[in-house]
């Protein structure tokens, strides 16, 4: 007879669901795209029936006696606000399309409970402020009682920035921005100007490309001038000025047929403009924070900028949750629903783990033995870390699918492709054989938390791969495959308590090679989400140049004949 809380990310893009149990424990969180294997799952219900059913079964929900409160990550339907859409930067058709998806998903949220027999009538839905959901998620993963919590994204209920104070685990909004002024929109437009597509989530590519360019003052300053920062609140410049600036900046856009690197200066200038504007917001919000900044919203995925905050801006520590963008809001909505029921205003502090998603299906695991005709299948439960470390040290590329899937955009060792970062050609090999990514995009390193200061300048923990730091020069030479063009790396740090398997693996690899650093990239092929099922993992294994996959305790290696 327990009451569970189902949090739904209802933005229309990046749907996700999260489940909090009656004790306020987050027992499940996963993006819909993983289940469907459809990147960003635009327009799909976050309570997509088979996904929700599988999640409820995994957490032990009793369909006969337990009940489920449904919570969404938006309070209001955007389309109902009679405001003309701004078309100066992104096409108005994109905004209209998104509003349609948003309206549909928020209207139908919870309908799946009817199909699953959990309710007899359309359930009452608890609807929470979009930025409050971001803040609840971000603070839930931050192990501090006091902080400034800043949410920066494309758009919220009123505007695209909200600033909250976290005091004694209670969240109180200090102010929020109103109107369309938005760093998220600015970055999405920059993505288009560089010849990429924000709808495909290609903001990453801008960040990656920026390392190859030089920020040009005439581009950077024009981009900065698009937005006015008034005590943290963002406003776009007035119509005439905006049109003038847009025309000026458009001259630097990369035409579809121009070489990629011709957009490198634009990308670098855009990243510099983002940093200048974000600095202005951050500079005024530190009072009372005890040096702690909790960052959420899609802009908190800007790892290049994130790595520059602690110590330079008026904060000593930065906390970014594993899923700061809209997928992560499912967690915030579920927690806010639990808090409402429990009549508490304190945001629970969650265990520091991103491993909150699905496990490999038992039946599928049992069938893996059938591969023995075409691949070598070994039970390595006694020493899987050592076996994988040995393969990596031999230059093999290994897919790993162990335990629960990560929540958020990053593969953090449970759905990862791992490799040796020492060979200079490893990046090209992985791209050629497995990932098919553009050659300029960097791969990430994973290190033991206690080693970070040996390898990086301005060392800080980065358990969810949220920040980019500069490699120490002498060390960078040892791991060329994970050093970006500007000498940085977007690192994941692992501790023996939070990620024991990866921690041991990195140690074993270090013992064999003298270099305790492993290349870690997401277990997918370009354009597809990270693998979800055992069959997804095997499909990548069989159709790519992966040398081996570790699925739970079974190591599957290609044999010479296969």
């Amino acid at each position, binding site marked *: 007879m327990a009451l569970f809380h189902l949090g739904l990310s209802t933005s229309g893009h990046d749907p996700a669901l999260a489940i909090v149990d009656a004790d306020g424990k987050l027992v499940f969180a996963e993006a819909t795209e993983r289940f469907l294997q459809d990147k960003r799952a635009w327009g799909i219900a976050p309570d997509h029936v088979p996904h929700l059913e599988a999640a409820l079964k995994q957490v032990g929900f009793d369909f006969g006696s337990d009940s489920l409160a449904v919570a969404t990550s938006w*309070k*209001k339907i955007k389309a*109902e*606000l*009679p*405001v*003309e859409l*701004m078309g100066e930067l992104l096409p108005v058709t994109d905004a209209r399309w998104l509003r349609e998806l948003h309206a549909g998903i928020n209207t139908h949220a919870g309908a799946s409970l009817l199909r699953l027999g959990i309710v007899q009538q359309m359930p009452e839905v608890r609807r929470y402020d979009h930025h409050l959901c971001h803040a609840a998620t971000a603070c839930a993963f931050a192990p501090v009682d006091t902080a400034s919590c800043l949410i920066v994204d494309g758009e919220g*209920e*009123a*505007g695209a920035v909200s600033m909250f104070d976290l005091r004694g685990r209670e969240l109180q909004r200090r*102010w*929020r*921005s*109103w*109107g*369309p002024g938005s760093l998220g929109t600015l970055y999405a437009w920059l993505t288009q100007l560089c010849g990429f597509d924000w709808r495909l989530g290609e903001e990453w590519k801008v960040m990656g490309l920026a390392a190859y360019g030089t920020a040009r003052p005439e581009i950077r300053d024009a981009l900065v001038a698009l937005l006015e920062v008034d005590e943290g*609140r963002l*406003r776009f410049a007035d119509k005439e000025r905006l049109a003038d600036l847009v025309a000026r900046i458009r001259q630097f856009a990369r035409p579809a047929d121009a070489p990629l690197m011709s957009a490198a200066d634009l990308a670098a200038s855009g990243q510099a403009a983002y940093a200048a504007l974000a600095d202005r917001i951050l500079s005024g919000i530190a009072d009372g924070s005890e040096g702690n900044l909790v960052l959420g919203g899609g802009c908190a995925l800007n790892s290049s900028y994130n790595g520059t905050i602690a110590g330079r801006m008026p904060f000593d520590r930065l906390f970014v949750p594993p899923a700061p963008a809209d997928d992560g809001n499912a967690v915030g909505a579920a927690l806010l629903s639990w808090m409402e029921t429990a009549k508490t205003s304190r945001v629970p502090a969650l265990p520091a783990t991103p491993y909150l998603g699905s496990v490999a299906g038992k039946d599928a695991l049992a069938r893996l033995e059938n591969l023995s005709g075409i691949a070598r299948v070994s039970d390595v439960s006694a020493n899987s870390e050592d076996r994988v470390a040995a393969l990596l040290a031999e230059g093999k590329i290994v897919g790993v699918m162990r335990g629960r899937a990560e929540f958020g955009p990053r593969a953090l060792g449970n759905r990862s492709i791992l490799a040796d970062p020492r060979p200079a050609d490893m990046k090209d090999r992985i791209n050629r054989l497995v990932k098919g990514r553009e050659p300029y995009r960097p791969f990430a390193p994973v290190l033991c938390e206690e080693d970070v200061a040996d390898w990086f300048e301005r060392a800080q923990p980065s358990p969810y791969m949220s920040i980019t730091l500069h490699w120490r020069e002498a060390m960078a030479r040892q791991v060329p495959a994970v050093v970006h063009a500007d000498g940085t790396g977007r690192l994941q740090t692992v501790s023996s308590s939070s990620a024991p398997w990866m921690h041991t693996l990195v140690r074993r690899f270090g013992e064999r090679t003298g270099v305790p650093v492993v290349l870690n990239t997401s277990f997918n092929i370009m354009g597809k989400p990270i693998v979800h099922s055992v069959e997804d993992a095997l499909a990548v294994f069989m159709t790519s140049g992966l040398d081996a996959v570790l699925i739970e305790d079974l190591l599957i290696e290609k044999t010479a004949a296969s």
Partner: protein
Amino acid sequence: MSDIDESQFFSFLRDRVAQRTKTEADAIGMDMSLADLGLQSIDAVLVCGEVEDRFGVEVDPADIFEHDTLGEFARAILKRAGA
């Protein structure tokens, strides 16, 4: 959230609307609709934000559109602030 002084609030609203519609505050009547005022919807939203910031009362972006006149919107906000 504390009570808001009514005349101070009305005068603030008239000022902000006047600034956005580029008219004189004296020309802004509390019985006027958004259309009478010539207030664009985006500017109406921004005025809501200024009210929230200045008086520390939570305003929903849709609030201003759900009332026929500026005065009705203002009274709804005052009522909420006093609640």
